[in-house]
């Protein structure tokens, strides 16, 4: 295995799937030969597969998804890119009312094999309209699958699986993850949806974290080890379906749970995971569940402000210490 970036792992997944299956195609704003994608994930693909399979679109988010839905129900497997996660707001009807519901509403007549890739997250000082994490909205919409890869290998394995899945998948990426490197299997490599991974084993406390927060949690775990604390880090990898078993098994082992996510706290990812454990595993808990998320505020522009809000190694360490 070679080390490649998360960005390259995504591109490799796209490339391999496009080679494998002629019905796979990409559409989105500036993903083609002129710009190569805002985060360069699609670099080189238009040159390789032609502009018909790597379609630059007008700035029309709602029609990007709607068009992908129409293609998906008539034999194609579109992978649509929304340039920034904040802009899914413009396509929520097509995502939540059309893509998510068509299979059900029409009694199973049609499948909607559609992947919506979009980068969430802050950390690059581009303020309130380009920094949100909105994956919880999609968890709340039955019919959608939600992937949240944190590592380059997960990115590749889950994206290939997403493209082959017959359901609409909201595939959440993170701006700060694109340059991160990791070992990634070459060629055929897929990961099942609904399989969490213990990214680090531990026995005193469980941290469930997703996406960029997995990396911060791993750093925190390392630092806490020096204080004699053994921290387990669980990465759900997909939020829908959510691997309850791995999460609950870990809580059963450690008796303590901290849930960390970059999205806003109220009614977010941490709420669902905390509620799940409160419902199904409360008896294993030796301390209150702790949630660490971005406080309920828009993401501000100025670096000290933004840094203050988004969870990181330091704030994870602090919160873990509160319950041990």
């Amino acid at each position, binding site marked *: 295995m070679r080390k490649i970036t998360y960005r390259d792992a995504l591109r490799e997944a796209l490339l391999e799937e496009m080679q494998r299956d002629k*019905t796979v*195609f990409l559409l989105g704003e500036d993903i083609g030969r002129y710009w190569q994608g805002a985060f360069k994930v699609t670099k080189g693909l238009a040159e390789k597969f032609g502009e*018909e*399979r790597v*379609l630059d*679109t*007008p700035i*029309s988010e*709602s*029609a990007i*998804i*709607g*068009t*992908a*839905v*129409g*293609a*998906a*129900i*008539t*034999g*194609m497997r*579109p992978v649509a890119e929304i340039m920034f996660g904040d802009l899914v707001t413009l396509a929520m*009807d*097509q995502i939540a*009312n*059309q893509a998510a519901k*068509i*299979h*059900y*509403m*029409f*009694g*199973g*007549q*049609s*499948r*909607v094999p559609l992947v919506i890739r979009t980068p969430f997250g802050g950390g690059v000082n581009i303020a309130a309209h380009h920094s949100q994490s909105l994956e919880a909205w999609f968890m709340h919409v*039955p*019919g959608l*699958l939600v992937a949240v890869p944190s590592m380059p290998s997960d990115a590749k394995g889950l994206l290939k699986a997403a493209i082959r899945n*017959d*359901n609409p998948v909201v595939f959440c990426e993170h701006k700060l993850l694109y340059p991160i490197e990791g070992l990634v299997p070459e060629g055929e490599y897929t990961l099942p949806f609904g399989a969490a991974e213990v990214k680090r084993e531990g026995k005193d406390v469980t941290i469930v974290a997703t996406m960029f927060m997995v990396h911060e949690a791993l750093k925190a775990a390392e630092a806490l080890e020096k204080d004699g604390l053994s921290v387990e880090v669980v990465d759900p990898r997909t939020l829908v379906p959510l691997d309850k078993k791995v999460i609950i098994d870990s809580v059963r082992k450690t008796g303590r749970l901290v849930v960390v996510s970059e999205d806003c706290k109220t009614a977010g990812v941490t709420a669902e995971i905390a509620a799940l454990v409160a419902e199904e595993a409360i008896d294993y808990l030796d301390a209150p569940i702790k949630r660490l998320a971005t406080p309920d505020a828009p993401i501000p522009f100025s670096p000290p402000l933004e840094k203050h809000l988004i969870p990181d190694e330091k704030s994870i360490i602090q919160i873990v210490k509160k319950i041990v």
Partner: protein
Amino acid sequence: MDSDTLVLMYRKMLEIRLFEDKVFELYGQNLVPGTIHLYTGEEAIAVGVCANLRKEDYIVSTHRGHGHCIAKGARLDRIMAEILGRKTGYCKGKGGSMHIADFSVGVLGATAVVGAGIPIATGAGLSIKLRGTDQVAACFFGDGASNQGTFHEAINMAAIWNLPVLFVCENNLYAMGTHQARVMLIDDIAERAAAYGIPGVLTDGNDAIAVYKAAEKAVERARGGRGPTLLECKTYRQKGHSRFDPATYRPKEEVEEWLSKDPVRRLRKQLREAGTISDDKLAQMERDVAEAVEAAVTFAVDGPHPAPREALEDIYA
């Protein structure tokens, strides 16, 4: 136009008319849950357009969709069963009146979100182009829908990619209680085509032959790889917007004028005057259609309701 097509069109229009009359009757008897939007008075549009389509062509439908589905070849009985919420309906009772689909005849389904079907039709067109078939996709939507952002985005997209799509605006002058003149300054929605650099065609939506001919050209264009057309059909709904709407916001004279332009009677008259079909055959057809509608009701009413637990099936493929 050849007479077989004309006769077939009349039959389809009559099917829609009698079907909708029956739905109206059934909900008077409290057999129809929820709400419904009848296509009565607009039959010439779906039929005129779909008479130009092949089985493998697509349509995208709306909340006022029974007529579209019938015109494209979906079965009366399974539509009726769906409207009555039965397991034997097209969507196993999950969709209802506003969400009929029959993928086996190219009905990609109706959306109840006004305007939401327009990009889906563009996507069907894109799919056709990428797969390299000579299918076309037709999308029905109302005058009200043409003020949605999706109209703008999706027609523009179909235009730049030169997709085989017919955007069929069924301008029945009202969106619920809102007259067209209160929500746009232009008279003809077809004019909006110019904003996307594609042809905009205006036609009398109560004249099945006129619709047929206009759609014929647009379909020919689309199949020939010459791109989309916006086709506006002026029409009128003979009933209220939905279940409980007495439609008192419409002037009586206006309603009467449009009732006098009834598209079903009009085509019937044309067929008789041109001698396309004998009175006997016509009478026979009318009996046949009435029977078919009755049979659909029987099929629907006899169908079981879905079992409650089926509510948790079909969420994921």
